């Protein structure tokens, strides 16, 4: 499946790819410590093409550190991190930046640039990766298309400070989509949002995955989010994979550490 095949329902294709097994992200024996705080202790993960993988863990369990290792924001102490077949930690700056344009990253707090309007926020990554636009010189239609896909076309000239939490998350998602990435990493996509807005964001994530057929790695501790969106789940405890399976399998488990995640 290539990214150009947009505007189709990719669900069937994604499931086939997930079964056939083309890994887009591979983490092996990942270790990371901050002083005496051992955050990751040999974490492993494989995300297949077109798959929605949820990693759940308590706050401070190292989920965000792990996801930041995937884009080279945090250097691991040891272990290998391969994204789209390339070892992140061995790449020079230029190839790393090129690879990053294939990875969308939705930050926990949206991370919109305060000093720029919504339009400028969306144009910013495009200005950096002009080669991806090809012959397209006018970025306006692309910005509008991305905003329309998250239902916020009217907010194009607003400043981030004028947006609500949910709107900020939508704009951040639009900014993530603007370069049409192959993989999207979601860091706590529903944290800090009310239940209704959380549902809207989850639905939006699903519709985007259907429309664009991207692979998604979702870091969360929101059980509802995991239930709706996950095809496979990994529970992260003490820096290692504690359990792995579908939401149904894990939610039925009797292990106290696993049960603790699903108790409301």
């Amino acid at each position, binding site marked *: 499946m290539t990214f150009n095949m947009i505007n189709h329902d990719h669900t069937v294709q994604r499931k086939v790819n997930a079964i056939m097994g083309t890994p887009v992200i591979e983490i092996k024996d990942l270790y990371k410590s901050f002083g005496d705080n051992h955050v990751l202790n040999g974490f492993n993960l494989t995300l297949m093409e077109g798959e929605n993988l949820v990693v759940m863990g308590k706050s401070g369990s190292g989920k965000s550190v792990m996801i930041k290792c995937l884009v080279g924001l945090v250097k691991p102490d040891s272990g290998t991190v391969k994204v789209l077949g390339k070892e992140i930690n061995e790449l020079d700056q230029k190839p790393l930046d090129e690879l990053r344009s294939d990875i969308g*990253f939705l930050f926990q707090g949206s991370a919109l640039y*305060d000093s720029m309007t919504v339009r400028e926020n969306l144009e910013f990554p495009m200005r950096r990766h002009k080669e991806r636009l090809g012959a397209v010189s006018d970025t306006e239609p692309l910005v509008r298309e991305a905003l329309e896909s998250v239902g916020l076309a009217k907010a194009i000239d607003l400043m981030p400070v004028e947006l609500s939490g949910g709107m900020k998350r939508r704009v951040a998602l639009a900014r993530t989509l603007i370069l049409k990435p192959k993989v999207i990493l979601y860091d706590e996509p529903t944290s800090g949002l009310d239940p209704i807005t959380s549902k809207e964001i989850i639905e939006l994530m699903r519709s985007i995955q259907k429309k664009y057929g991207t692979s998604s790695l979702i870091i969360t501790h929101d059980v509802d989010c995991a239930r709706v969106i996950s095809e496979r789940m990994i529970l992260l405890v003490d820096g290692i994979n504690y359990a792995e399976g579908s939401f149904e399998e894990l939610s039925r488990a009797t292990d106290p550490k696993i049960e603790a995640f699903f108790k409301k």
Partner: protein
Amino acid sequence: MNNASTKFKGLKQFFIEVGDLSYFAGRFFKEALKPPFEFKELLRQCYQMGNRSLVLVGVTGFIIGLVLTLQSRPTLIQFGAVSWMPNMVGISIVREIGPVITALICAGRIASGIGAELGSMRVTEQIDAMEVSGTNPFKYLVVTRIMATTLMLPILVIFGDLVALYGSALVENFKGNVSFLLYFNTVFDALAFGDLIPATVKSFFFGFAIGLVGCYKGYYCKKGTAGVGIAANTAVVTASLLLFFVDFIAVFVTDIFYDL
């Protein structure tokens, strides 16, 4: 023993900070010389820092010129040397008071602003988002800001000096019936290149120090939103102290050249 240990830790921390700041300055020169260059952002920062500091620098300069003349007048009259007023005020403002006061104002306004802005970008992951989007945040945020302060401060100093001299001329016009033309002619007769060049050169260094400290404190801001306040605050304190240190070296070096 405990006191000595605390002092040792403080001293160690000081040297670590100096080392980190020097490394940060080295990285600035390395990144500044490497393409691509962020000209658009540099111009935006120059406008932000120059234009928005203009009123503050102008008002402060005007009052300094006014007060300096009013305070000096009685003493000079006592010695029958009031006609030396333009020379005295001109030299003291151009050589020392203008650059130092303007730099201190900019340390308060610009260094704290940069510290707070970059600090808040750091804690809200905007700097990480920039890096993930394929932009070198050091080049885009730090290099442009340090270059903007370095380029803008000498211009602000010249503007501040002129307004201060105007304030002084106003007092002399009212109290001593000295015309503006005569006042400014006397000032420019008294000033030599040896007064203007060192003052302008040290203004570049002042601007560099302000931008460097503001960016350093903001870029490495930690401890969440509380850290933003700390970054802004320490940026002002460190930049102000560094300015006096730079000024001391500048005066020392200038003095050597005067002796030659």
